[in-house]
């Protein structure tokens, strides 16, 4: 094994030593819950990573497969008595494997798409290139189906439509607010820009309502997390640098995201993963990270008046915690907003903080298992009898919608900001 290949793992070798293989990670790991085999647990992956560092296991399909069985949800880190950062270790292992074996065709395609805004702006074109690549890799008999939101892939799957006009194309870069009110950089994210544009519109409406100046940097790209999922750290670094430059162009009080995943990237993963690899970037990444805040948290902080946000309807809602919120300690704020909104009854589901099964590209590689995890989630939602499930991540919205549709259920899936902005937008 060459030095280069072991680098990413050597960077986390000390962290691996913290794992005492006690097995606590078996309790909450959604991947272990569905695969029921030890290599899918956090401690299993740490053990394999330790052997990779020693260079005494071959980087064959078995290791790649074990490392792919992780949603990077961070539940193992939360519950680990020694706080072993298995998510970081898995990211490093995937990078090491990608360096050694090369990226998979699928992840190469993911990298190409997420790096290319022009390509993404032509959704249909992207789909045309993307679809065949994917279907070559995954034969239809495998039970896997394309999970990227492409409108022309039918079947039994619920796939959201791509918006006719991306969110960012509908708005100028700077939307002036009232003097003396905060200036907010809105990091939009791909799902909001191309698919769930109404999340972007609702977010914009709420912050304009509060008098804020909202800046939508036109140079912003995908946060890169789909690349991190496959070990393509080079793409993530490129995107992080571009996003950094786009954000730094503007003087802002906050960098705000309405996507838990993008928030996770900006707030935690950029400084942690990219910063570790690139010390010159680290301070700049950290400066942006320190300003990054989730939309629901910021709304609460800026004092959104609950009575202004009522929908005029009596709704029973339940809240799903996106993993990237849970790991950032965001749980109370969105719930408080929902509780204070007139007409809303918040009921808790069982395991609200359990992963929905999307897990970046996990759901592509392990579609059956992703469905299995999602089915548990759907059941928990349906059991509450709620009219709508509310969450703070467009990725979760796609996954939850799919699960509920497949379960034949009509519970609506909404982003927190959509629910809050109803009255204001009317």
């Amino acid at each position: 094994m060459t030095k280069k290949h072991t680098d990413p793992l050597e960077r986390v070798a000390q962290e691996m030593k913290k794992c005492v293989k006690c097995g606590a990670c078996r309790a909450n790991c959604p991947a272990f819950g569905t695969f029921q085999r030890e290599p899918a647990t956090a401690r299993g992956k740490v053990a394999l990573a330790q052997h990779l560092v020693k260079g005494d296991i071959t980087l064959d399909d078995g290791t790649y497969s074990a490392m792919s069985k992780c949603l990077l949800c961070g539940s193992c880190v939360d519950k680990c008595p020694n706080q072993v950062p298995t998510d970081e270790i898995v990211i490093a292992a995937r990078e090491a494997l990608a360096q050694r074996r090369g990226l998979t065709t699928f992840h190469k395609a993911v990298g190409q798409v997420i790096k290319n805004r022009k390509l993404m702006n032509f959704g249909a074109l992207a789909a045309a290139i993307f679809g065949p690549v994917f279907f070559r890799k995954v034969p239809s008999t495998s039970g896997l189906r394309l999970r990227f939101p492409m409108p022309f892939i039918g079947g039994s799957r619920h796939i959201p439509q791509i918006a006719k006009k991306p969110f960012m194309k509908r708005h100028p870069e700077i939307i002036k607010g009232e003097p003396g009110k905060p200036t907010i950089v809105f990091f939009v994210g791909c799902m909001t820009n191309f698919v769930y544009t109404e999340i972007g519109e609702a977010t914009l409406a709420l912050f304009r309502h509060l008098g804020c100046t909202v800046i939508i940097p036109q140079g912003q790209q995908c946060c890169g997390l789909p690349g991190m999922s496959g070990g393509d750290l080079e793409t993530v670094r490129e995107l992080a640098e571009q996003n950094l430059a786009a954000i730094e162009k503007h003087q802002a009080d906050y960098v705000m995201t309405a996507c838990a995943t993008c928030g996770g990237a900006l707030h935690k993963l950029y400084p942690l993963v990219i910063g570790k690899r690139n010390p010159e970037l680290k301070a700049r990444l950290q400066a942006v990270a320190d300003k990054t805040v989730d939309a629901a948290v910021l709304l609460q902080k800026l004092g959104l008046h609950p009575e202004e946000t009522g929908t005029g309807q009596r709704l029973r809602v339940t809240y799903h915690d996106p993993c990237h919120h849970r790991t950032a300690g965001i749980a109370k704020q969105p719930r408080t907003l929902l509780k204070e909104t007139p007409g809303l009854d918040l009921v808790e589901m069982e395991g609200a903080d359990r992963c929905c099964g999307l897990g970046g590209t996990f759901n592509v590689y392990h579609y059956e298992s992703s469905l299995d995890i999602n089915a548990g989630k759907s059941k928990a939602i349906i059991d509450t009898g709620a009219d709508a499930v509310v969450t703070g991540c467009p990725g979760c919205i796609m996954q939850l919608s799919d699960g509920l549709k497949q379960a034949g259920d009509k519970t609506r899936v909404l982003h927190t900001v959509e629910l809050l902005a109803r009255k204001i937008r009317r």
Partner: protein
Amino acid sequence: MLDARTLQQLTDIVGAENIATGVQDLICYGYDATQMEFLPDAVVHPDSAEQVSKILQLANKENFPVFPRGAGSGFTGGALPKGGGVVLVTTRMNRILRIDTDNLVAEVEPGVVTEAFQMEVEKLGLFYPPDPASLKFSTLGGNVAECAGGPRAVKYGVTKDFVMGLEVVLPTGAIIRTGGETVKGVVGYDLTKLLCGSEGTLGIITKIIFKLLPYPDSKKTMLTVFDSIDGAARAVSTIIKNKIIPTTLEFMDHATLTCVERRFNLGMPESARAVLLIEVDGDRDLIEKQAGQIHKLIEPLGLVQFRVAKDAAESEELWRVRRLVSPSLRDVNPDKFNEDIVVPRSKVPDVIRRIELIQKRYDIPIVNFGHAGDGNIHVNIMIDKSVPGQLEKAHEAIKEVFQAALDLGGTMSGEHGVGLAKQPYIPLELNADQITAMKSIKAALDPNNILNPGKMLP
């Protein structure tokens, strides 16, 4: 090494998707919480007693060892495949077969996770008290094989006190039932008790019949802080002498408190030298009265703080102090040996004093906490394995800790078992005749020594 023909026969028994020989699986079924690692030759996941029986029959015929394993969360290496062979994982056998509310018994398969079982019985207003720290992930089969304990043992006892009967595959492949579902039953030897805590050396458990209790009406949690270890220890005996048996009496020594405080800054009083976390359960009026009595009884014993939880959330907050112990310890040193000695509860201060002397003599940090109510102390010897000589010192210190427990009328393991980790020390506690008797039992049941060989007995 297993030959191709044997592997094929194993595959025929469990099905191709339930046998693994890839190096990744071998690594992942070769460790537990001891930090030891041994690679097996194959890992099998049977789903019935019949499959287990066929595997053991094959093992006798082809002469390969079989290592039963649940969640692999043991602290003594009881499930590790030392020397290679087949790891037999019981987690596919994970059904709760029935919960009989008329007779207060339940029948389960060994792979059921302990907490999952507790939650199911609690839905019916019933109670399965054993609560090892690993309850969220350890399996009931593993709990029985190791005779797991936990904080509630002071009032309710340990796993074996709730096992009424078993279905077991003996090392030769015979499937037998032991015990039954009746409270009384005295026909033949009590094989149920023999198998509880036998660490997978005498048979593989495939079904368990548990006794259940009514779920206690309510509980009350108290966090009590003392200015001396003696005060805390005397509090334990005073409470019990006054005929109050709390559900838990968890104890943390000064070294433990220092670790927790340094890491989490809980604001313990300056004078805090020991903490007792006390919980009582039962009828609401009774526990109110008991909490008051406890306060009065322990007040003169150097009590510097007494906090009572008003509700479940506050109770969880008090328990947090205890739960933070484990993550705090690594700040002392990166490697730890977690031993679980037991002494009669009145001897807890004596054993702590002996341990303090051992700590000074070897100059290694030792942190003590655990279940004071039943005298079961977790002695954590904290070392840095990368420092030359520390590992050797730790082994010497451990031996002296065991000797201290034995001198005070105790035992060297209350709930972790012997496995590989404590095997070298067995002659400290058991004499030659005892060991011979135990070896005769093993030889009678496992003539070819194929089931979990090399464990427990020297």
